């Protein structure tokens, strides 16, 4: 892990307060509609079309025009899983421009998005700064805040998508394994992170007691919060609550990880606007200040990272995020840690010691009142498990809770600060937001 004094990424311990604490603000956000998969024919529901809509919605939410945007940030990497590896039937038929390649369908390049905004009469005509290479939204939000804080952009539009096209996961591997796969493939280790987290989760149960089924109240509550998120996949397309019996009888993919512990891939896009606290003062929305952001990237020391590793990683993450914000655990009101697999969320919960939860106490906490209307509204977004694998519900919810616009999900406890991020304990980015420029 390389250290960096200021700048990005923020990996190091002991960096103190973030140098731009309270000087950068989130002033707009927007999202698209959501589908389980692109259907292969509806050109108004492609990943690209969704992303343009999300960007336009964010600009409108901020009370800006496209010409006000001078910074643009996106993730050009393949959204979701690598389609090239999947057997999705015959080679994809392409269409008339702008859909004459994969661009706009299963991934979106900065050039495609910028051209799309121009095509739709909302040109980003004043861009001074373009960053197209963000890993995922956890890192991307931190980078966006840093870029605005550093003065490289004044009004930055940041966008992220997760795509899904027809077909099922299917990885064709030959009889031979090369590169990193030679140390895992021979024993049937999947490419998915599911197994890594199932392993650490079992170590957790061995160390602290409890079992897979102790995740039930958390997973059920995630779905409940998701159903209270009007744009979410389940609210839109499968609007019913799952039951305890559904959870206990679920099909296991890799024991102890079942279907209901895993997020569902969807087609969706999101956008967010960052600007300076100065500029945010007289804008349409109440500013939500960025107090801190940190990232993590930990190499695996042997074949698999262990519980001990993940606890150390998330202890460090929480310590650094709090330190950058000048905050303590009791200052954190809204907490939306990642839940791509239900098996690792407790690692963040305990690392951040949210509502006093210490190592080994997550199952007892889950068994208490974690509903949004209760005293411990954990993961009020519903996360990926409640809204589909957009990786953005934790951001929309945090902004809405701090604005007081979360509707049926609005918590009854104080909602002045929020922390959120993704992806996994070994590699992630997190951000700390507040309605005040300092704690």
């Amino acid at each position: 892990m390389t250290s960096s004094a200021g700048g990005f990424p923020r990996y190091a311990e002991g960096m103190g307060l973030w140098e731009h604490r309270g000087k950068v603000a989130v002033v707009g956000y927007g999202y698209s509609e959501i589908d389980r998969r692109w259907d292969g024919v509806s050109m108004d529901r492609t990943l690209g079309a969704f992303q343009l809509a999300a960007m336009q919605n964010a600009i409108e939410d901020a009370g800006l025009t496209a010409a006000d945007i001078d910074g643009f940030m996106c993730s050009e990497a393949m959204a979701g899983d690598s389609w090239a590896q999947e057997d999705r039937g015959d080679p994809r038929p392409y269409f008339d421009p702008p859909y004459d390649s994969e661009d706009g369908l299963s991934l979106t390049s900065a050039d495609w998005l910028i051209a799309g905004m121009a095509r739709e009469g909302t040109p980003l005509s004043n861009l001074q700064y373009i960053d197209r290479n963000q890993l995922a939204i956890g890192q991307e939000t931190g980078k966006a805040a840093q870029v605005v804080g550093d003065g490289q952009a004044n009004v930055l539009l940041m966008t992220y998508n997760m795509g899904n096209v027809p077909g099922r996961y299917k990885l064709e591997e030959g009889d031979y394994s090369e590169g990193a796969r030679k140390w895992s493939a021979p024993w049937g280790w999947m490419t998915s992170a599911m197994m890594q987290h199932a392993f650490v989760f079992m170590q957790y149960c061995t160390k602290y007691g409890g079992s897979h089924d102790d995740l039930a109240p958390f997973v059920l509550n995630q779905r409940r919060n998701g159903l209270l998120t009007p744009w979410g996949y389940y609210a839109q397309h499968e609007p019913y609550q799952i039951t305890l019996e559904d959870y206990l009888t679920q099909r296991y993919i890799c024991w102890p990880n079942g279907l209901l512990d895993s997020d569902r891939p969807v087609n969706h896009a999101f956008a967010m606007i960052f600007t300076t606290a100065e500029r945010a003062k007289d804008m349409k929305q109440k500013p939500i200040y960025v107090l801190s952001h940190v990232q993590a990237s930990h190499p695996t020391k042997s074949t698999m990272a262990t519980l001990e590793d993940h606890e150390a990683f998330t202890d460090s993450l929480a310590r650094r995020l709090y330190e950058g914000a000048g905050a303590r655990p009791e200052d954190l009101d809204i907490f939306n840690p990642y839940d791509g697999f239900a098996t690792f969320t407790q690692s963040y919960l305990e690392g951040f010691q949210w509502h006093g939860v210490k190592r080994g106490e997550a199952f007892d906490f889950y068994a208490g009142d974690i509903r949004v209307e209760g005293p411990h509204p954990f993961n009020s977004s519903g996360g990926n498990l409640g809204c589909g694998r957009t990786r953005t519900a934790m951001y929309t919810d945090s902004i809405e809770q701090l604005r007081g616009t979360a509707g049926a999900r609005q918590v009854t406890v104080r909602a002045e600060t929020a922390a959120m991020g993704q992806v996994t304990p070994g590699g992630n980015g997190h951000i700390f937001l507040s309605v005040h420029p300092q704690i």
Partner: protein
Amino acid sequence: MEQRIPVTSSEDGAGEAGRRPVGLISFDIDGTLTTGHGPGPITREMVERAKEWGYIIGSCSDRPVGDQKNMWETWGIEVSFTVLKHMLDSVKSRFEADSYVHIGDTDVDYHFARVSGFDFLQVQTMDPEPWMLSPEDGQCHWGPEGRTR
């Protein structure tokens, strides 16, 4: 293609030439029936005809059981079973039949059919069963999305 004789349930068939063969058909939902996410090629009419012909029918899906029941209620078809995908074997122990078929669209369907002693029909490539054919023109009218592979 081997033509199957339409079957009736043992109650209906009793009193004629003894017991007539009873078939059981398990339907996957998503990617198999037209109500699925995404929609499959098997229509409500086909399923209803299979039932009229005396097949024991039901669904076997990764969808929660409550949602499977809701789906059948929406279709207005009373079915004999709604089970989770990995519980297909429970259908075999609950119902006595001469043939057990699971119709689905993925290798998970194939896997659980195989380990549960069911024949598997891949909905995208199967030859139409007699109950799938329209009595009007003898043709198989797949759902609006048709078959994609």
